[in-house]
């Protein structure tokens, strides 16, 4: 289709000639647009000749299918080793790493491992390593999300223990990681009260794909205009299955419920 006016005469046909065997003849035609402007330009008509061999192959394939397959492979590996995997997603700065540091420091009865995802730096891996947990940093360069293949490479290098919990801290981004299954058991979206309480409405895809929503930094509630109930309402409108935790990874308030959930879910 002509991308100037949608007239149905193919601009792209020009490119077929490079490889194909049918000829082109530039032929002018005139359009009149809705606003009354008229223009004439040359197009090549792609019309069938005896020697033309355009044909359509039906594919019907999920574009993210390959990632989906790799994610299932990861899931099988985790299941066989009884590794409970949690994919942490959020905007940058909502406290994913602090939540991890606190959890790894305070929950000593569960063996943890961590995969860190950031575009650049080892900073988060260094913070996690200080807690004593095995950690591997993935730097995605310009990439905006982790994918199942990256996770496969990462856990192969990490050598996961059986009966453990693997945290994957995704790249701080509330949009792109939503589409990429990593093979996790649960996806946890974190929102902090220093962000807008309408974030679930603004970035619904991420909240739609999450199982758990953690509202972090609640120790700052007296200083910010964040309506916890409003945020939860928005999130539930997007995904009525969501389960919530309200906590502050810094002050420790509300962390006990999160630890209880963690311990109970691993047993399942």
């Amino acid at each position, binding site marked *: 289709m002509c991308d100037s006016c949608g007239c149905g005469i193919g601009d*792209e046909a020009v490119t077929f000639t490079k490889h194909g065997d049918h000829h082109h003849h530039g032929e002018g035609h005139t359009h009149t647009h809705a606003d009354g402007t008229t223009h004439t330009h040359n197009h090549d008509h792609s019309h069938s000749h005896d020697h033309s061999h*355009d*044909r*359509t*192959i039906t594919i*019907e394939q*999920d574009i993210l299918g*390959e990632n989906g397959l790799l994610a299932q492979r990861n899931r099988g590996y985790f299941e066989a080793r009884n590794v409970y995997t949690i994919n942490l997603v959020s905007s940058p700065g909502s406290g994913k790493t602090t939540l991890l540091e606190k959890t790894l420091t305070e929950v000593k009865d569960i063996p943890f491992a961590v995969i860190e995802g950031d575009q650049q730096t080892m900073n988060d891996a260094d913070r996690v390593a200080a807690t004593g947990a095995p950690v591997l940093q993935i730097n995605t360069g310009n990439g905006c999300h982790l994918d199942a293949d990256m996770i496969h490479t990462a856990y192969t290098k990490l050598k996961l223990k059986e009966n453990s919990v693997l945290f994957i801290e995704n790249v701080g981004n509330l949009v792109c990681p939503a589409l990429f299954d990593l093979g996790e058991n649960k996806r946890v979206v974190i929102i902090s009260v220093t962000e807008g309480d309408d974030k679930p409405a603004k970035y*619904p895809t991420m*909240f739609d794909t999450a199982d758990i929503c953690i509202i972090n930094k609640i120790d700052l509630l007296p200083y910010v205009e964040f309506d916890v109930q409003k945020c939860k309402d928005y999130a539930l409108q997007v995904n009525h299955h969501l389960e919530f935790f309200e906590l502050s990874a810094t002050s420790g308030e509300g962390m006990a419920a999160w630890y209880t959930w963690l311990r109970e879910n691993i047993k399942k």
Partner: protein
Amino acid sequence: MHEMSIAMSIVDIACKEAQKDGATAITTIELDVGKLAGIMVDSLNFCYDSVCKGTLAENSQLVINEIAGKGHCIKCDTEFEIDNFMALCPNCESYEVEIQQGRELKLKAVTVNE
């Protein structure tokens, strides 16, 4: 911008299928993209041309069929069209809606040239 990696997957799948078929060039790639798939069609189009460069799909056309969203209310069983995730049932005003259609992200067909 995940549309770049989506575009790469699309061109990758299309080129593999075209090669299997012995084709020398791809002229059109056709997709089904649901309105709730989390894809910005404009950015996908933007990424597409640069991803196609140097492949069998160079200068090919991307045709996107946008698939409307469909919701099903768990409370009252009503089915209705939705265009976002915060879908409110028009009958009973519940937000307990399951999405039945609109998350599609599928490569439908490739038109090739020998």
